[in-house]
């Protein structure tokens, strides 16, 4: 690892003051950052250790909803009684990701800030516009089986690797941040960004801004939900395609629907206008088929990942059926019901 200087932040103000300096990274669980530093993909001059900050609580919000502290560990979040009872989609998505060891170390703030697993981003011997702006993209016309089919640009076709974020997108979470300019709330849909002509930037955080919490709204989806994840092996692999569905049914019709896709884009992929089209409809195959087409509208394969388009189409339909039937995908028994 390339040497760096180290600061232990005693307060959020101290952290953000230090964090706005160039080449300075916040360090929480470290499961992604330390790995990237070993690969010299990330070369910080300074790390600001935020592990001592009191941001590890999970607490009910006064107006309803749940606040997940940025430093609460992924495992503690998934197994928290309120998350299990009221936000089972989130618990399921977290448990679909990584390994128990990683979930014990990784934090909620770190999870949403993790970087792509594109092979070219990791391989410093190859060009990568995300790692080194302007150097080119090895994945376009390269080995791109795991890459994006939606929202990519001619500079970057990387995907966001998180499972947790796909559930957070479907649940309309809000990211709370504090920084040199004060505190602000970022709707989850606006937190991550598409690569465009600046793929080096994964999200909309400003220099020095620190994620303090992720808020879940009061709306609970405890019956008609699922997190369906398809990957190359049954456990401990990133999604080729994943689908988070949160649905409400009333009198035999869909009264609320949120669907987010993982493994297909630079950010969790949602189309609220397509979701609205299904309101009032019966939860049947015709509606689900139309919705899958609408959600995947504009999907483009890169060659090796062309299979993701039909795979995603089937996965969306299957996940919608699971949610409508109230039979969420088990994260232990991987047979797909």
């Amino acid at each position, binding site marked *: 690892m390339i040497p760096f200087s180290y600061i232990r932040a005693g307060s959020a103000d101290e952290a953000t003051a230090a964090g706005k300096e160039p080449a300075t990274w916040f360090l929480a669980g470290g499961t992604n950052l330390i790995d990237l530093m070993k690969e010299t993909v990330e070369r910080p001059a300074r790390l600001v250790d935020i592990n001592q900050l009191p941001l590890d609580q999970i607490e009910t919000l006064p107006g309803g909803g749940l606040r997940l502290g940025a430093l609460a560990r992924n495992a503690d979040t998934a197994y928290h009684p309120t998350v299990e009872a009221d936000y089972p989609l989130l618990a399921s998505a977290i448990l679909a990701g990584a390994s128990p060891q990683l979930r*014990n170390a990784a934090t909620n703030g770190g999870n949403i800030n993790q970087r792509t697993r594109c092979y070219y981003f990791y391989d410093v011997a190859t060009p990568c516009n995300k790692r080194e702006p302007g150097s080119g993209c090895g994945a376009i016309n390269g080995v791109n089986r795991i890459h994006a089919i939606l929202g990519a640009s001619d500079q970057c076709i990387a995907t966001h690797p998180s499972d947790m974020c796909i559930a957070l997108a479907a649940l309309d979470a809000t990211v709370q941040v504090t920084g040199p300019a004060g505190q602000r709330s970022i709707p989850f849909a606006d937190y991550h960004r598409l690569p465009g002509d600046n793929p080096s930037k994964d999200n909309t955080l400003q220099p020095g801004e620190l994620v303090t919490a992720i808020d879940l709204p009061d709306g609970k989806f405890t019956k008609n939900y699922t997190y369906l994840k398809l990957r190359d092996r049954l456990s401990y692999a990133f999604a080729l395609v994943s689908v988070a569905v949160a649905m409400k049914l009333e009198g035999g019709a869909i009264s609320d629907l949120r669907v987010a896709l993982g493994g297909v884009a630079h950010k969790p992929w949602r189309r609220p206008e397509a979701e609205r089209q299904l309101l009032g409809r019966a939860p049947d195959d015709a509606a689900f088929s139309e919705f899958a087409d609408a959600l995947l509208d504009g999907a483009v394969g890169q060659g090796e990942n062309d299979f993701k388009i039909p795979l995603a189409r089937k996965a969306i339909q299957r996940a919608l059926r699971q949610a409508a039937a109230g039979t969420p995908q088990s994260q232990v028994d991987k047979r797909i019901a």
Partner: protein
Amino acid sequence: MPPQATLQPAAPAFDVKVDFSLTINGRKHSFSVEPWVTLLDLLRERLDLTGSKKGCDHGQCGACTVLVDGKRINSCLKLAVTLDGSEITTIEGLADGDRLHPLQQAFVEHDAFQCGYCTPGQICSAQGLINEGRARTAAEIRELMSGNLCRCGAYTNIVDAVEEVVRQGALHKEAAE
């Protein structure tokens, strides 16, 4: 502008060692080391606790698994300085003198290893799994041991060994209640 240009150190403070202490296998240790030393390297290179293995060094194989305050983590991805005040348990800390830990005994009895390289990580991970209390069935054990790879392919016997100790624990718990 190439990114390297912005990655120059703000100040050459690289000779600064950081003081912290850890309790490792019940014994308190004080350290003054560079901040980039991982827990795995600290254990292996400074304390000669070489049971924890450096397999992939990237959090993918689980051979470096240890318990921090009772929770299993990949020690290769954890900077030691960030753990000030924590209690670490490694494979060397599980046995009670000459008496093997129940998981060690079960791994022997079930022939749950071939080369043995992944075994310390498997056993520490299994102890973490037991502490978590989430795995009861063989299917749940397989899923919750998925962070530990075994290139010899001893998985079937590893699951049997862990399942036996999980079941013993459940019986003891029932007896206590």
